[in-house]
């Protein structure tokens, strides 16, 4: 392996951007911040590409297997008993791929924001936060240590919080950023306990060692972890379930998904970066990172992953059909697509042909990053133009936004799985994997594919066709070159990414995997996509009242899908009514009245006693004399009769 310490630059450059702009951006650099950040990010991107290429084509493959390499590592904090938090860089196929994805999308967003965010009051702060996010996300994907991943996991969480709350004077943005942070934080608590359980049984925090110890059949660590049980489940099952809870929180899987749609309050490029392409797939990445443990030692948890993924995919797709805010549609679409990736992992086996799901999941992650980031950037361009998120304010925009129209269409085709676009390949692989292992999940996936196509084309026709758009007041134009260029680049990616032979690079055990392509498996999803698209065209191509009629005839279903199946209300009930009103208020009352009351009671009883006894000091000489006499007589009696 050649000298690769320069890889550290991938992490350092965005960090420099953050520190530089965070400290000096506001006062000294101001408008130059965007350029500086973009240049730093461009360098990051180039180093990432270079690293990934080197890894895949030169030194990564040893004896036909992609190995895990650790070019940089140092002990950050050592606990006792061999447990230590190491910080370092781990290169393996998935982290190399993620390096490219993250730095690419981040670079696109940096460029795009140069125009999109121009003139904002906190322009440099925005770029500083982007730098922080990119740094932490890159740190997350190259983690060598389960605590390192947790470290960066929290950091991406907080940068997401900061960016969602970027428009801090809007109450809705403030509520959204709080919600996002708290929900993921709750999931992270589970993740943390999971880490503690795993580290306790494996005696290490290092990924490589942990995976080895918990998968080697007959190892004492694995035996202990399997034999210790709590509430009928083994410790390992608990650990992996809790780790998955963290993953589900970050990746917005049901029932921890409620924060993602609200997170759309952030600036749109941020949604493209964080809430579509990178941070939300961190959960998928985490499951993939620990995949050997899931697949070999805790297959029951992997089943849970599969079912939750499939359910989320279908559930989110249904909700997406009824939403009217374009960013919310995209948010639910993201959730649905991540569900795809999750269940693809869930149905996968470790190694060989059975590992198709794993490859497919990572493949879909890659293609999804392209087209979903693109969709969000397009949405940004549209919102920039219309100044509204609502579908009803749009229509007929194809004439005003030609580039956006074209790129949006490509993304739509890609996400719907139309043949020859990237989504087709990855989705087809996922469905094949599901068909081979779990038929119920396959049907859920298939239904989702149809729905996906429907809601995407509903969006497309509503925005670009349908009623004619009227310009009010000043004539606006499509954003400048800096906005178009990233969209065009990503459109190229969205169209062509499917031709990458992913199986050669990424597979569950590192060996190259030949991906079978069977035409008969591709027919059903493709046909369903076309049906979905056609229905959308029939309903929304021209302005008419068919959609309202259909919505009215399905009013109960439509209403509950529009209301997101009342999950938010349920959470609100639990948090507001139970946690706040019952637990919180009781604790507060208890503290004010019982604990504090006890202290005050001590004080007041002392006082009462002294009040009661102070009357003795009457100031009357004769009374004192009586006490004196009484005491003397008492003593006399005692001395004479008792203590003789």
């Amino acid at each position, binding site marked *: 392996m050649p000298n690769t310490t320069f890889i550290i630059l991938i992490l350092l450059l965005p960090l420099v951007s953050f520190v530089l702009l965070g400290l000096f951006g*506001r006062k000294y650099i101001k408008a130059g911040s965007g350029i500086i950040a973009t240049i730093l990010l461009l360098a990051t991107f180039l180093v990432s590409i270079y690293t990934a290429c080197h890894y895949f084509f030169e030194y990564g493959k040893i004896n036909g297997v992609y190995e895990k390499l650790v070019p940089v590592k140092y*002990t*950050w*904090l*050592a*606990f*006792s*008993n061999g*447990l230590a*938090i190491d910080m370092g860089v781990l290169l393996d196929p998935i982290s190399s791929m993620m390096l490219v994805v993250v730095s690419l999308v981040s670079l696109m967003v940096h460029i795009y924001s140069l125009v999109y965010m121009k003139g904002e009051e906190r322009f440099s702060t925005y770029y500083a936060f982007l730098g922080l996010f990119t740094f932490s996300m890159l740190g997350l994907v190259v983690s060598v240590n389960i*605590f390192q991943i*947790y*470290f*960066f996991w*929290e*950091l991406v969480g*907080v940068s997401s919080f900061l960016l969602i*709350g970027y428009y*801090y*004077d*809007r*109450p809705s943005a*403030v*509520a959204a*950023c*709080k919600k996002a*942070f*708290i929900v993921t*934080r*709750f999931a992270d*608590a589970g993740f*943390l*306990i999971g880490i*503690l*359980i795993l*580290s*306790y049984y494996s005696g290490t925090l290092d990924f490589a060692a942990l995976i080895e110890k918990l998968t080697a059949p007959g190892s004492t660590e694995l035996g202990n972890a399997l034999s210790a049980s709590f509430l009928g489940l083994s410790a390992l099952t608990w650990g992996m379930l809790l780790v998955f809870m963290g993953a589900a929180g970050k990746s917005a899987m049901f029932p921890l998904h409620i924060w993602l749609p609200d997170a759309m309050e952030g600036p749109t490029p941020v949604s493209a970066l964080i809430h579509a392409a990178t941070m939300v797939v961190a959960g998928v990445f985490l499951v993939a990172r620990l995949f050997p443990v899931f697949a070999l030692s805790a297959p029951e948890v992997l089943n849970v992953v599969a079912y939750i993924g499939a359910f989320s995919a279908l559930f989110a797709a249904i909700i997406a059909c009824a939403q009217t805010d374009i960013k919310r549609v995209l948010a639910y679409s993201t959730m649905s697509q991540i569900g795809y990736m999750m269940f693809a992992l869930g149905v996968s086996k470790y190694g060989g042909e059975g590992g198709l799901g794993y490859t497919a999941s990572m493949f879909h992650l890659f293609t999804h990053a392209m087209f979903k980031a693109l969709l969000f950037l397009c949405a940004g361009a549209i919102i920039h133009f219309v100044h509204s998120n609502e579908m009803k304010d749009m229509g007929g925009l194809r004439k005003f936004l030609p580039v956006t129209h074209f790129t949006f269409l490509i993304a739509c085709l890609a996400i719907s799985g139309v043949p020859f676009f990237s989504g087709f390949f990855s989705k087809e692989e996922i469905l094949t994997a599901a068909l081979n292992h779990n038929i119920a999940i396959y049907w859920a996936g298939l239904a989702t594919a149809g729905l996906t196509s429907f809601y995407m084309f509903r969006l497309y026709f509503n925005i670009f066709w349908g009623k004619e758009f009227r310009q009010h007041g000043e004539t606006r134009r499509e954003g400048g070159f800096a906005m178009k260029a990233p969209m065009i680049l990503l459109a190229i990616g969205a169209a062509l990414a499917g031709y990458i032979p992913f199986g050669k690079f990424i597979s569950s055990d590192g060996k190259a995997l030949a991906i079978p392509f069977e035409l008969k498996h591709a027919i059903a999803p493709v046909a369903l996509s076309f049906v979905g698209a056609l229905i959308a065209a029939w309903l929304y191509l021209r302005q008419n009242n068919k959609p309202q009629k259909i919505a009215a005839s399905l009013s109960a279903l439509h209403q509950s899908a529009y209301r997101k199946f009342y999950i938010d209300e349920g959470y609100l009930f639990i948090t507001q009514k139970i946690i*706040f009103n019952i*637990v*919180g*208020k009781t*604790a*507060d009352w*208890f*503290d004010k009245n019982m*604990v*504090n009351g*006890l*202290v005050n009671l001590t*004080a007041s009883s002392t006082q009462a006693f002294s009040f009661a006894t102070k009357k003795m000091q009457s100031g009357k000489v004769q009374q004192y004399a009586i006490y004196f006499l009484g005491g003397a007589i008492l003593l006399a009696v005692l001395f004479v009769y008792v203590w003789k």
Partner: protein
Amino acid sequence: MNLLLLILTPLLTAIAVLLPRNKQHVKWVSFFGSIVQSALAFVLFFAFRRARTEDPSSPMLFEQKHKLFEALNINLHLGVDGISVAMILLTSFVVTAGVLVSWNVEKMTKEFHFLLMLLALGAYGLFISLDLFVLFFFLEISVIPKYLLIGIWGSGKKEYAANKLALMLMSGSALILVGILGLYFSNNRDFDLLSLSRASIPGSVQDIIFPLVFTGFGVFTALFPFHTWVPDGHSSAPTAGSMFLAGISMKLGGYGCLRIAIFLLPQAAKHYADIIIILSAIGVLYGAFVTMMQRDLKYINAYSSVSHVGFSLLALGMLTQTAMVGAVMQMVSHGLMTALFFAVIGMIYDRTHTRMVNEMGGLMKAMPFITTAFFIVGLCSLGLPGLSGFVAEMTILVGSWENSGLVHRAATVAAVLSIVVTAVYILRAIAHTAMGPVKHERHLQLKDAAWNEKLAAVILIAGILSIGLAPGWLSDLLKPATEVIMNKLK
């Protein structure tokens, strides 16, 4: 290094503060004194590191012993180990920042700074003394100034708070005194920490003395249910007073629990470990829930201190080395964090004249520096990686998980859950004050931090970051020291 300097400097500063006629000079003298103290703390830190590499075995370094009162066998016995050095560094940071934020105290400036320095003297003295009687003496020195600081310069129900605080702390120290005397008489009239640690104290005696000493110090460090002085005391005290109270005084208790109760009475510590764990787990979770219901920023921080300090007591109860390192880390981290928190609250209050969360909003617009500091301290409090809270809490949790008993596990899980509740209340506080629409027009005209406030915040943030980004130095400092205690526990 001569440890007497650490006692003499605050003492001389306290006296020097009384000399000048001009209020302006008083502040500068006090500031200068605190700078000298910080410099000494740093010198001590580096000297200690060097000396530790040369002499890895002896439990205490830089020892010196002078006779104070021969008839009762009381000696001025000084010495430090890693734990004391960490606490001294913390103290010096908080003292410097505290003096800086008190720049605008106009009422009885001289007396105010005198009392601050007296408090500092008590803290430094306690951390370096190895004689139980002298240690107790310094503990008492640090109580009285608090009473006056709250009673004279406080706000709100200050008389009530001052009385409550002083009485509760005094009853705590009464328990400690009984415990110390018990040790003294059962060990041949000996107050010396090191020789007591070598003596074999029978288990039955330990079982009697331990609860006294631990509860006594527990009162200082807000052990549930003896925590009620914290909210009232903190919220009535002047800014610097709150900083000293939460940043230093509460740590005196934690230090005492570790240094006297657990170190000298290890067998009893094992006996009572479960009770300590249960009480502190209740404190952690319960403190967090109560915090969630508060509307006053100072109350929020005071109750959250109960929760955070509960973490370090929990760790002490776990009796594993990692947890113990974590406990001290948490003390240091919480000291810095809470001092900064109170400093920021003080700055906000000075400008908006309110501490109620729901009367503020959008302060970020007018006061970017202060709100940034507020964000940092809030994030530190909820354990964000890169800041000190994360390091301490993770160390504690990993250490706690080393015990596999049901009580230990349940308490650890409760502690983890409290982190979520912490996120809830911190975000509510931040979102209501710094973010959101501006509530009052006049809040737009408010000035951002002045130089002294900025300096204070930067000093504390530097401390927080230095632990959060590179915790190695702190854990290296604490490991050998906790090793000594762990050896006693075996």
